[in-house]
C-alpha cells in the first residue's frame, strides 16, 4: 500500500511535540534529493570546542596505560625482566600470559597476537603493557622493564620473502599472443611506498571495567563491531559484557579500521587487571611508529597497442608488502588486483597479484585500499602509450575508456552507471587541458631554443582517469548482511540506529537528510543514535566508501517501511500522525537487512563476475611548476571530476573530493616513509610531512551523477575515488614540464633531478609515432639492460653526476643511502624511544 503526501496540508496542531514537517509534493519525493542543504549535524559542537574526542573524556580515578614495544624487527622473546629495585605493586604489568581469551587480533587470518608471546616479528610490536595511577610512575616503570631477546634473521624486501599472504589472478586470455601482435609494447616497473593516514587525532582508547565483569571502551574508531568482536575473543567475554562506544573521531582514512581493535584489547586488559578505567592515548610518535600504513607495492606492467591506438593487451604483475601480519592485506591486494587494468576496455588482460610478508609493521587500510597503488601504474602506462603513439593522453583515454555494455577483466558487463567518459570530458573542459597542454609545449620549445634566457620554472599539465569499485569487493556485502534501523520512539520522535561512524565525512548529516525526506519531516526532527554497540545494530564497518551507498540505502528502506506502517494505521501522512501513532501503539522500530543487489553475482573461487555492484569514476587534471634546478614541484591546481552516483549533500561530497585530492598530491610529491632494518625512520610529524595550506593546490571539485539503480537514492560513494587519480595526474604533469617519467612515488626533487640527469645521457623518449614491434622501456632507462630496469639496487653513479643527485640516472629507485631527515636518527640498537603514555586527563 502506498500513501502519498497531500501537498498543502496545514501544519500539525501546535500541541503536538514535533517540528513542523516539510511539505513535500508527492511528485518531488525522489530519493536522494536534498530538500535544502542542512548544516553539518555535529558542526556547532566541533566549532565551539564542546565536541568530546577520546582524550577529552574524563573518567575519575582513571589510570594511564603504556605499551612496551620491540626494538627489533625479528627476534625470539626470551623474557621480560622487571627491575627488582622498583616497587611493582604501584603499577600493573600485562603480558601475553594475562590474556584470558585467545591471544589473537584478527580480521582475516589468526596470525597476529595482541601481545607478542615468544616471537617478535616487527619493530614496535607490542610485547607488554603497563598502567599506573599517574604519569610519572608510569614513566619510571617503563624505564625499569627490559625485553630479553635473541635476534633472528629478518626479511625486509617483499621480493625476497617466501611467505605469501594471498595471491589473485584476473583474466584468462592468452595475453602473450596478444602482446606479440601489438605494434607497440610499453613496459614499466613502478614502485610506491608506505603512506601514513595522518589523521590529526592520534589513536586513542579508554577502557572502563563493568560491574558484570566485562568492559566498555570509548575510543577514536571507524568500526565499532570489529572492536566488539576482537574484545570478546581476546578477553573471553559475552557480547553483552562488551560495549564499544565511539567518541568524536578526528579523522580515520582507513587508519582507524583495524588498529583500534588491538588498542582496545590492550586498554581492556589493563583495566581488567587494575580494576580502574585505563586511558591509552597515543602520542604522534608512537602512532606513526606502530600503526598501519598504506601497502608499498611494485607493479610491473606491459601494455600492447596497435599503431592506430587500439588497446590490445595488458599484462600486470603486482607485488604488495603486507608487513609482518596479515591484517586486511588479502582484501587490499584483491582490490588492487581488480583495479590494476584501469578503467579501459581491453580484449586481453592478465593481472597477477601477490602479497608477501616482511619483518616490518603490518600495513593496512588507507583510503583507496590498494587501488591507488595499481591505478598509478595503469595511468603511467596510458600516458606513456600516448607519448609513444604521438597522440594526446586525453584522446587515447577517449578511445579506451569503458562505456556502458563493456566487459571488465573479470567478465563483468558494465550495465549502468558508467561515468568514465563524462568525468574525463568534464575535467578536461573545466581545466582547459588541451589548451594548457599546447602552452606548456610552447614553453618547452621556447626554453630549448633560447638557453640564455631560460626559466628554471617549467609548467606542466597532466591527466589521469580511474574507476573505483563501490562498496565491498565480490560477495563481501552479502556476507556482512548489515542491518540499519529507523525507529519511532514512544514520544513520537524519529531516530536512526546504525553503527556507521562519523569521522568528518558526514554520516551524521546525510542519514537524517535521507530519512527526513522519506518521512516528510524536517531534517532537524530526525535524531541519530550514538555509535554504541549496546544501542545500535551492526551496520558493518565504516569503510570502502560504502556508508552512503549501502547503509544509506538501508536507512532509506527502513524509513519507507516505517512510514508505510504508520500511515497504514493512521490513514494520515506520517508527519502529522506519528505522535498519535506512538501514543496509541507505542514505539515502532524497523530493522532493514542488506539484500543482494539484483543481478550482481561474483564467483570468489574463479574471481569471475561482478567484482562490485557498480563503480565510481574519477578524473583529475593537475597543473604543476617544476624548478629544473632544484627539482622542486609546486602543484598549482587540480581539477577533479568525480561520478558519485548521487551527491546527497554536495558541499560534504565536495569536501571529500578536495580532501582526497590533497592526500593524493601528498602521496605524489612529499609523503614518504624511510626504513632502516624494518624501523620507520621518520616517525615524527617533524619528519613525516603532509601538505600545508601553502603546499596545497587550488582544487576544483566537479560532481557528476550517474545514479546506481541498486541503491534507492542512486549514491555510489565518494570517499576513496579522488585518491586514485591525484598522484598519476601530478606525475604526468611533472613529465610534461621536464620530459622525464618518475616511476616511483613520491616524485621527490632527488628522483626528478636523477631522472633528468639520466635523460641528458640517454636516448630521448620517442616523440612521434613509432615503428611496428617497438618496445618502449622505462623512460630514462633507454640504453640500459633489463637488469637495470628491474633492479632496486644502486647502479654505478654516472660520471660527473651532480652532487645533489647521489642516486643514479634513471628515475628508478634512487634510494639515497644517506638519510635526509633533519631529526637525529637513532641506531636500531639504541634503547627504545619513549612511547606515549597518554596526554590526557
Amino acid at each position, binding site marked *: 500500500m502506498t500513501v502519498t503526501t497531500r501537498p498543502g496540508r496545514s501544519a500539525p496542531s501546535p500541541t503536538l511535540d514535533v517540528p513542523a514537517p516539510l511539505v513535500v509534493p508527492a511528485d518531488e519525493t525522489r530519493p536522494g534529493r536534498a530538500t535544502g542543504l542542512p548544516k*553539518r549535524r*555535529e558542526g556547532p559542537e566541533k566549532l565551539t570546542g564542546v565536541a568530546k574526542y577520546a582524550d577529552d573524556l574524563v573518567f575519575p580515578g582513571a589510570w594511564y596505560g603504556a605499551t612496551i614495544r620491540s626494538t627489533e624487527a625479528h627476534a625470539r622473546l626470551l623474557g621480560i625482566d622487571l627491575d627488582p629495585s622498583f616497587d611493582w605493586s604501584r603499577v600493573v604489568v600485562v603480558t601475553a600470559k594475562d590474556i584470558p581469551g585467545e591471544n589473537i587480533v584478527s580480521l582475516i587470518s589468526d596470525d597476529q597476537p595482541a601481545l607478542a608471546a615468544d616471537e617478535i616479528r616487527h619493530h614496535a610490536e607490542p610485547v607488554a603493557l603497563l598502567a599506573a595511577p599517574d604519569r610519572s610512575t608510569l614513566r619510571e616503570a617503563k624505564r625499569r622493564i627490559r625485553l630479553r631477546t635473541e635476534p633472528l634473521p629478518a626479511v625486509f624486501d617483499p621480493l625476497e620473502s617466501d611467505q605469501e599472504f594471498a595471491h589473485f589472478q584476473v583474466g584468462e586470455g592468452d595475453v602473450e599472443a596478444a602482446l606479440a601482435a601489438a605494434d607497440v609494447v610499453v613496459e614499466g616497473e613502478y614502485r610506491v611506498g608506505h603512506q601514513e593516514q595522518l589523521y590529526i587525532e592520534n589513536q586513542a582508547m579508554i577502557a572502563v571495567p563493568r560491574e558484570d565483569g566485562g568492559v566498555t571502551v570509548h575510543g577514536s574508531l571507524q568500526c565499532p563491531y570489529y572492536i566488539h568482536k576482537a574484545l570478546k575473543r581476546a578477553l573471553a567475554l559475552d557480547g553483552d559484557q562488551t560495549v564499544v562506544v565511539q567518541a568524536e573521531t578526528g*579523522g580515520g582514512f582507513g587508519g582507524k579500521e583495524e588498529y583500534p581493535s588491538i588498542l582496545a584489547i590492550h586498554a581492556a586488559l589493563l583495566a581488567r587487571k587494575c580494576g580502574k578505567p585505563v586511558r591509552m592515548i597515543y602520542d604522534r610518535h608512537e602512532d606513526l611508529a606502530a600503526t598501519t600504513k598504506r601497502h608499498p607495492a611494485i607493479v610491473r606492467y606491459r601494455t600492447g597497442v596497435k599503431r592506430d591506438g587500439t588497446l590490445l593487451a595488458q599484462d600486470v604483475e603486482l607485488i604488495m608488502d603486507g608487513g609482518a601480519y596479515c591484517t586486511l592485506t588479502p582484501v587490499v591486494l584483491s582490490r588492487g588486483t581488480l583495479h590494476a587494468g584501469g578503467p579501459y576496455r581491453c580484449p586481453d588482460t592478465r593481472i597477477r597479484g601477490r602479497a608477501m610478508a616482511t619483518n616490518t609493521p603490518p600495513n593496512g587500510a588507507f583510503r583507496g585500499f590498494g587501488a591507488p597503488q595499481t591505478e598509478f601504474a595503469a595511468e603511467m602506462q596510458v600516458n606513456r602509450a600516448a607519448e609513444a603513439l604521438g597522440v594526446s593522453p586525453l584522446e587515447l583515454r577517449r578511445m579506451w575508456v569503458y562505456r556502458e555494455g563493456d566487459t571488465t577483466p573479470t567478465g563483468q558487463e558494465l550495465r549502468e552507471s558508467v561515468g568514465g567518459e563524462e568525468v574525463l570530458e568534464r575535467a578536461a573542459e573545466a581545466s582547459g587541458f588541451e589548451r594548457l597542454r599546447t602552452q606548456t609545449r610552447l614553453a618547452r620549445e621556447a626554453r630549448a631554443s633560447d638557453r640564455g634566457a631560460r626559466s628554471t620554472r617549467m609548467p606542466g599539465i597532466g591527466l589521469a582517469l580511474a574507476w573505483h569499485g563501490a562498496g565491498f569487493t565480490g560477495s563481501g556485502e552479502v556476507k556482512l548482511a548489515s542491518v540499519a534501523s529507523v525507529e519511532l520512539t514512544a514520544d513520537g520522535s524519529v531516530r536512526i540506529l546504525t553503527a556507521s561512524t562519523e569521522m*568528518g565525512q558526514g554520516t551524521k548529516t546525510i542519514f537524517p537528510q535521507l530519512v527526513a525526506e522519506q518521512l516528510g519531516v524536517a531534517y532537524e526532527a530526525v535524531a541519530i543514535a550514538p555509535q554504541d554497540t549496546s544501542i545500535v545494530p551492526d551496520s558493518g564497518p565504516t569503510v570502502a566508501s560504502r556508508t552512503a551507498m549501502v547503509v544509506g540505502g538501508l536507512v532509506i528502506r527502513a524509513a519507507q517501511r516505517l512510514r508505510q506502517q504508520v500511515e497504514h494505521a493512521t490513514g494520515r501522512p506520517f508527519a502529522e500522525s506519528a505522535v498519535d501513532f506512538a501514543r496509541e501503539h507505542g514505539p515502532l522500530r524497523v530493522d532493514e537487512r542488506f539484500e543482494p543487489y539484483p543481478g550482481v553475482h561474483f564467483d570468489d573461487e574463479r574471481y569471475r563476475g561482478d567484482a562490485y555492484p557498480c563503480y565510481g569514476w574519477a578524473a583529475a587534471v593537475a597543473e604543476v611548476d617544476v624548478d629544473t634546478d632544484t627539482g622542486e614541484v609546486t602543484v598549482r591546481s587540480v581539477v577533479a571530476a568525480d561520478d558519485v552516483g548521487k551527491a546527497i549533500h554536495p558541499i560534504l561530497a565536495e*569536501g571529500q573530493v*578536495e*580532501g582526497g585530492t590533497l592526500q593524493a598530491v601528498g602521496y605524489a610529491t612529499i609523503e614518504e616513509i624511510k626504513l632502516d632494518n624494518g624501523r620507520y625512520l621518520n616517525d615524527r610529524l617533524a619528519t613525516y610531512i603532509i601538505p600545508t*595550506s601553502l603546499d*596545497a593546490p587550488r582544487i576544483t571539485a566537479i560532481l557528476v551523477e550517474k545514479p546506481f539503480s541498486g541503491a534507492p537514492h542512486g549514491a555510489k560513494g565518494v570517499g576513496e575515488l579522488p585518491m586514485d587519480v591525484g598522484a598519476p595526474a601530478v606525475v604526468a604533469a611533472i613529465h610534461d614540464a621536464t620530459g622525464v617519467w618518475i616511476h616511483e612515488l613520491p616524485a621527490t626533487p632527488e628522483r626528478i633531478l636523477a631522472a633528468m640527469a639520466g635523460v641528458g645521457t640517454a636516448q630521448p623518449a620517442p616523440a612521434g609515432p613509432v615503428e611496428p614491434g617497438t618496445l618502449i622501456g622505462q623512460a630514462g632507462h633507454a640504453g640500459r639492460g633489463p637488469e637495470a630496469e628491474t633492479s632496486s639496487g644502486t647502479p654505478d653513479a654516472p660520471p660527473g653526476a651532480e652532487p645533489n643527485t647521489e642516486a643514479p640516472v634513471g628515475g628508478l629507485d634512487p634510494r639515497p643511502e644517506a638519510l635526509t631527515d633533519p631529526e637525529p636518527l637513532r641506531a636500531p640498537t639504541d634503547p627504545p624511544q619513549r612511547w606515549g603514555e597518554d596526554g590526557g*586527563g
Partner: protein
Amino acid sequence: MTEVVYRFTVNGQPVELAVPGMRRLLDALREDLALTGTKEGCGEGECGACSVLVDGAVVDACLVPVCQVDGSDVRTVEGLATGPEALSPLQEAFLETGGAQCGICTPGMLMAARAFLDDGAEPTEDAIREAIAGNLCRCTGYTKIIDAIAMAARPA
C-alpha cells in the same frame, strides 16, 4: 620549595594556577582548567591543533610553558562564540562552507583565522593560506577553510 602562582586571563576570565612553571600551557588549559577545546595533535609544534592566542599572537600551546603566559591574555576556541547558542560570524562561516570535517584541527584553525582577521590584512587567498600555514588539516584540502575565512572577512 615555594610554589609560584601564575596569574593570567583565559577568554577574559582571571586565572590563578599554582603549577610547575614549565608545565605546558596545553596541559594547563586541558587538565587544570578543563578547557578541552584546544587539541593535541603532535606535541612538537608541527600541526597547530593546539593553537591559541597569547596577547593576540597565535602560538602552539604545546610549546609554551605556563610561566611564559604569566600576566598575559590567553584566548581559546571556547571564547569565540558570543553565547551558548550563538556562533561567531567566523564559526558560522566554517559551518556554512563546510570548513570543518572531522573537527580536530578546527579549534586551532579558528584561532589562527581569528588572529588573521583581527590583524585586518587584505583577505586574499594567498594571505589566508599564509595565515593558516602552521595548521595542518588532513580532511578538507584547505579549500573550504580558505572559503570560510574569506567569507568571515567580508563586511556583513
